């Protein structure tokens, strides 16, 4: 059974947030609105895994 845990980590030393979906996909975002939109798009965010900012 998959966990329903969504996590957002504030990357040390940066202004970026990293969203971690319960499916394991990750995404880096500039702000909380963007990161929640991405997380809540599951499962449709799979193609966006690499689309986050660097």
């Amino acid at each position, binding site marked *: 059974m998959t966990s*329903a845990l969504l*996590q*957002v980590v504030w990357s040390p030393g940066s202004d970026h947030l990293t969203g971690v979906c319960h499916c394991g996909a990750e995404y880096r975002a500039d702000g909380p609105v963007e990161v929640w939109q991405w997380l809540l798009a599951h499962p449709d965010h799979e193609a966006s895994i690499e689309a986050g900012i660097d």
Partner: protein
Amino acid sequence: MVFPRNQWYVAAYGEEVGEELLARTICGEPIVFYRTGAGDAVALADRCVHRRFPLSEGHRDGDRLVCGYHGFTYEPDGRCVAVPAQTRIPRTARVPVYPVVEQDSLVWVWIGDGDADPAAIPRAPWLDAEGWVVVRGMEPLEARYELLVDNLMDLSHETYLHGGYIGTPEVAETPITTSVDEEAGVVRVSRRMKDVECPPFYANSTGIKGRIDRWQDIEYQPPCLYLLHSRIAPAGLEPAPDGDDSAAFHAEIVYGITPSTETTTFDFWMVARDFALDDPEVTTYLAESNRTVVMQDVVALNLLEKVIATEPEGYQELSINIDTGGLAARRLLQRMTDES
């Protein structure tokens, strides 16, 4: 109304419910609380079925409530058993009864329909446990409950609003980790600070002279219960490998966030500690200091509510990284409201 229904809310502290009639509007519903001779807390709709007179303005006849207007008399189960000048009791003469549970020193009331399952009430065991001392109070807030949720989910404001009490520069500067358990409906926001300044609130209560490691682990169980697990330890003091952390100081900061009306809130605040248990001076200091901190929030949030009342609909706020947990809480609250 904009409240999640079919939920448990903190209605009162156990000692507030007694012989006297306690009137409290919760989620827009006027309720009268009292305790029966057997010691059970009772919650009835605070309106007589006859002409809507508040029953809290009446008096007790044993376990019964007598309306102060025309004498309609109600049992604790809401049944009317006496009306003036006639023996026939109308079939519809009954006031709604609210399910009530006392747990962890709090009186919880169920607002809504459906299954009022006591097992769904979130726990705050430190409030009524051996090895902990608790100070607490309740401040009525002239602001919507969402503003208090926002406030508590983002502790960065401690640095600015509560400087000299619980705020130090590091609080606003330390990044946070946020998680949402979608199944349990819990938001957690964690901020771990190493080798930082000890704010007076903790320096004066723990006796720590130097710098500290300070953990702030928020656990919000919407809509009503907010827990802040606060760990304070001399810098570098880690929990033991087996998890034993008894050398550190722990404070469990608990809030019952109970909507009263659309723009007013009951702000139940509690601080439980596992140190200086026999020191009344620490108890007095924490009670006074924490009330000061709470009142700083109350003043700010009351002001915010006035601002909101003057602004045009659809005002767009700006959210930044520190709001990650607050946005998660808002979403869960909206989901609960939509489902109820």
